[in-house]
């Protein structure tokens, strides 16, 4: 069966979501891209920045993804951004993900990010963002166990809500 690449996103977010130290620093949660709720002021943002399928014959190969993972905090809210970004780095640098249908290859930072953004609606509000771009590489199943050309997709997975 073809594995679900979204499970990689989920595993990364769960690794961050379930860490009590990070939860204490950024209690409003972990969100995919800009999906944070309106009242969130201290949270982790995870964005799939780049992705490539590196293929081999017979539907093997690996997925090569780059995630932007940032601690985000609103101005006027007391947040230890230094510790939050460092905790993210501690969790992800040479960390490990367990994802169904994949074999873990690598998880590491490629570069840091640190920026301040003006709120697009209320110009008096600043958003502080600190984190990095993290490379995630996950191998697909070997030829012997992957789907062969001409085989039907798993129809039970069709129609599932993302």
């Amino acid at each position, binding site marked *: 069966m073809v594995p679900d690449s979204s499970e990689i996103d989920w595993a990364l977010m769960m690794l961050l979501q379930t860490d009590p130290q990070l939860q204490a620093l950024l209690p409003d949660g972990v969100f995919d891209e800009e999906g944070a709720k309106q009242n969130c002021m201290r949270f982790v943002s995870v964005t799939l920045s780049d992705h490539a399928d*590196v*293929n*081999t*014959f*017979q*539907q*093997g*190969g*690996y997925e090569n993804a780059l995630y932007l993972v940032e601690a985000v905090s609103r101005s006027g809210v007391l947040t230890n951004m230094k510790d939050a970004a460092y905790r993210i780095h501690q969790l992800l640098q040479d960390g490990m993900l367990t994802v169904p249908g994949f074999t873990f*290859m690598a998880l590491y930072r490629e570069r840091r990010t640190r920026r301040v953004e003006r709120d697009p609606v209320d110009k008096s509000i600043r958003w502080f963002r600190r984190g990095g771009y993290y*490379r995630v*590489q996950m*191998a697909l199943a*070997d*030829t*012997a166990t992957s789907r*062969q*050309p*001409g085989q039907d997709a798993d129809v039970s997975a069709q129609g599932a809500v993302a």
Partner: protein
Amino acid sequence: MAILTGRNGQVLYDPAGGAAAVAILSLNQWTASFKTDRTEVTCFGDTNKVYIPGMKDISGTVNGYWNSAETTLFEAADAATPGLLKLVPNSTEPTFFWSGLAYLDADIDVSVNDAPAVSGTFSAAGPWTREPAA
């Protein structure tokens, strides 16, 4: 038949040189060359250069990624006797392929930011055939 994709290419190998070739895992490219030597025999009065064919020289390359569950390429490079190599452009058309005895060499390239890449070259060690024959 129509033009098909290379996604379903295949490289198979039997170290015993027989008919039990098994697909080598984690490869993503193969090339083969069937060049024939040419000898120039241009003579006075010819309006252009003239050549006659010599022997065909069959060789090629395979490329892919290191997979610890698949060491066939390196075992073949260590072997003192040739194995049977079978090259399939698309496994959905399994009756179309090139095959023959071949000696293989292997290389591996490991860098910090990518999956280790393996590559190999092969040279014919006996007669090669193309199937189906014309």
